[in-house]
């Protein structure tokens, strides 16, 4: 049986650069690192209860990528009764990489890009793990 695609859902927070870090990390995974295993969905569409978006998150494992502790992506997936397999908060990763000072919302600075790369690698490993577990079930 073919594995389900993992749905990577960033919060895309617009107030601070950390929302952009999460968004860029998600695109690195779905467009470059694991394009055959992942996809994304518009979080706003999910929030609005779009039937296709609801079906997608209920039938596929999801990873929430949140910029801040408000965890909008995680909360919206849960409120949609989606299959939340994992969640990551950019501020937690930043705490472990204190030397990095991400900046910029329109365009991330180099350190923001580096943080996004670190998160994207962790997300990719988690995607592999989720799919391995699915195969075992």
């Amino acid at each position, binding site marked *: 049986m073919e594995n389900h695609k993992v749905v990577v859902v*960033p919060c895309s927070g617009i107030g601070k650069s950390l929302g952009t870090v999460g968004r860029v990390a998600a695109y690195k995974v779905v467009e470059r690192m694991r394009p055959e295993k992942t996809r994304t969905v518009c979080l706003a569409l999910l*929030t*609005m209860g779009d039937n296709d978006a609801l079906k997608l998150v209920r039938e596929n494992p999801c990873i929430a990528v949140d910029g801040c502790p*408000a965890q909008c*992506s995680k*909360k919206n997936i849960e409120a949609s009764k989606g299959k939340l397999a994992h969640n990551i908060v950019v501020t937690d990763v930043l705490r472990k990489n204190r030397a990095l000072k991400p900046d910029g919302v329109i365009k991330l600075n180099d350190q923001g890009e580096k943080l996004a790369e670190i998160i994207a690698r962790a997300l990719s490993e988690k995607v592999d793990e989720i799919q391995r577990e699915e195969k075992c079930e």
Partner: protein
Amino acid sequence: MTLAAGKVGIICCSGEDLPEGTISRVATRLVLEKLKPDQTVTLCLPLFLAGGEDERAFARVFPTIAVDGCSKKCAEAGTKKYSGKPVATILVSEVMKKYPHLKVKSREKLEPQEMELAMKVAEEIAKKVDEILCKTARK
């Protein structure tokens, strides 16, 4: 609750699945950072659901412009559902029709042509901000 004087709220969809969602987001930030920094504020759209009453009061405090990437108009609908009816909506896909030579395909990093389109959208938002502020000043 009365409207806050001199400020307009801008809520964009930031749609992750479409390049137009990235345009909505970048255009919004261009308005906030460059075109109308003193007259505009924003809020993350999904925070309406995840946040509390303070966040949901946003569109009752600020006259609000929704910036949507596609015809599903999530920013307009979400703002109306959770906070208050936006005063205006800017639809990226409609603005694109005026500039058929500007193509969009990137979701992550915008190319110069895509940045040009984002600026066109930002200018339309800024024009709407001026209209709203003129109207509220007259009241």
